[in-house]
């Protein structure tokens, strides 16, 4: 029985990593980690991001705001209603008349439907909810919407991605397109596919969004980071998701 169970776990892990492998040479950051960290991410009781997921699950069914509604009151079981949702953002919100990422979508729900104050960027509350929602897309292929209203944003993102900036005069592409799998100060340069956000980064000792990761890179090339509400992030996120189209989600991921 025990042997069978561990065989089943092994099989699940094996098929999981198969799903992450791309025939076109694209690699998730997961594949660039050592086996110890991969094991830590795969074990839901060892991956610290799951602590935030647990908090997110509680928040999901907690009533909030003047409307007295919880996420569950409208969306029900997230395993059904939120499956594949995180794999589709950023998306254009007709409700707001602008593109939003997953965190932005959660805050739209809070302000419009729950009539509660928006959660601050990188706050534990927002990260917990987005981790809980992102978890429901685990293994789902990244599928950004084919929305013409996102085309301009994506093009802007592609431009920023290729544009040299900062005192080091580097572009995102200089590392992530031209030199992936090589080393930068001892760390392996990943291809930069946003498959696992929000991620628990060991260096941060905390969960962080893709925005925080992008800021990290921008500061690293000694450019000035945009404020958290800047559209530059949405543009880059949209471009990166398009670039990673079809890759399997492994959120909430663990990264060094």
């Amino acid at each position: 029985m025990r042997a069978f169970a561990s065989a089943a776990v092994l099989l699940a892990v094996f098929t999981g990593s198969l799903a992450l492998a791309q025939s076109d040479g694209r690699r998730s950051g997961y594949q660039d980690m050592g086996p110890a960290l991969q094991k830590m991410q795969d074990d839901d009781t060892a991956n610290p991001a799951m602590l935030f997921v647990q908090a997110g699950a509680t928040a999901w069914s907690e009533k909030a705001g003047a409307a007295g509604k919880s996420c569950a009151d409208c969306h029900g079981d997230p395993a059904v209603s939120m499956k594949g949702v995180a794999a589709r953002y950023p998306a254009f919100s007709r409700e707001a008349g602008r593109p939003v990422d997953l965190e932005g979508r959660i805050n739209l729900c809070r302000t419009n439907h729950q009539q509660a104050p928006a959660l601050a960027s990188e706050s534990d509350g927002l990260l917990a909810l987005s981790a809980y929602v992102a978890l429901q897309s685990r293994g789902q292929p990244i599928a950004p919407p084919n929305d013409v209203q996102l085309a301009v944003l994506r093009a802007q993102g592609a431009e920023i991605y290729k544009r040299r900036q900062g005192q080091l005069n580097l572009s995102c592409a200089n590392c992530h397109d031209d030199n992936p799998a090589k080393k930068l100060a001892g760390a392996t340069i990943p291809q930069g596919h946003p498959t696992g956000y929000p991620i628990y980064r060991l260096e941060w000792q905390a969960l962080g969004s893709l925005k925080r990761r992008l800021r990290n890179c921008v500061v690293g090339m000694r450019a000035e980071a945009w404020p958290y509400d800047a559209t530059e992030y949405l543009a880059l996120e949209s471009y990166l998701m398009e670039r990673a189209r079809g890759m399997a989600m492994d959120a909430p991921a663990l990264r060094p």
Partner: protein
Amino acid sequence: MANVLVNAPKTAKKGQVVEIKALIMHVMETGFRPGTNGRIIPRNIIEDFTATWNGREIFRMKMSPAIAANPFVSFSAIATESGTIAFRWGGDEGFVAEHQVAITVT
């Protein structure tokens, strides 16, 4: 209620060595870092972690400021009798968290 994730087997054979893993959400603030206002953020860490099996202590660990946030502890024990494994974390600012899991030993 503290946010805890424990991984222990639900069943074990008598005399078997079982691995027990416990993860808890905690900032583990060192007490050495200045905050945005330039003042030192007061130390806030977990000081003690203990595990008991049916009330008998099987593992104890003293934690220090050098331990990262959200500490993850893994240890092993010999399964002797069915019952509960209880975990307790205690630390600065009156922090106490408790969790228990049941185990059947055959």
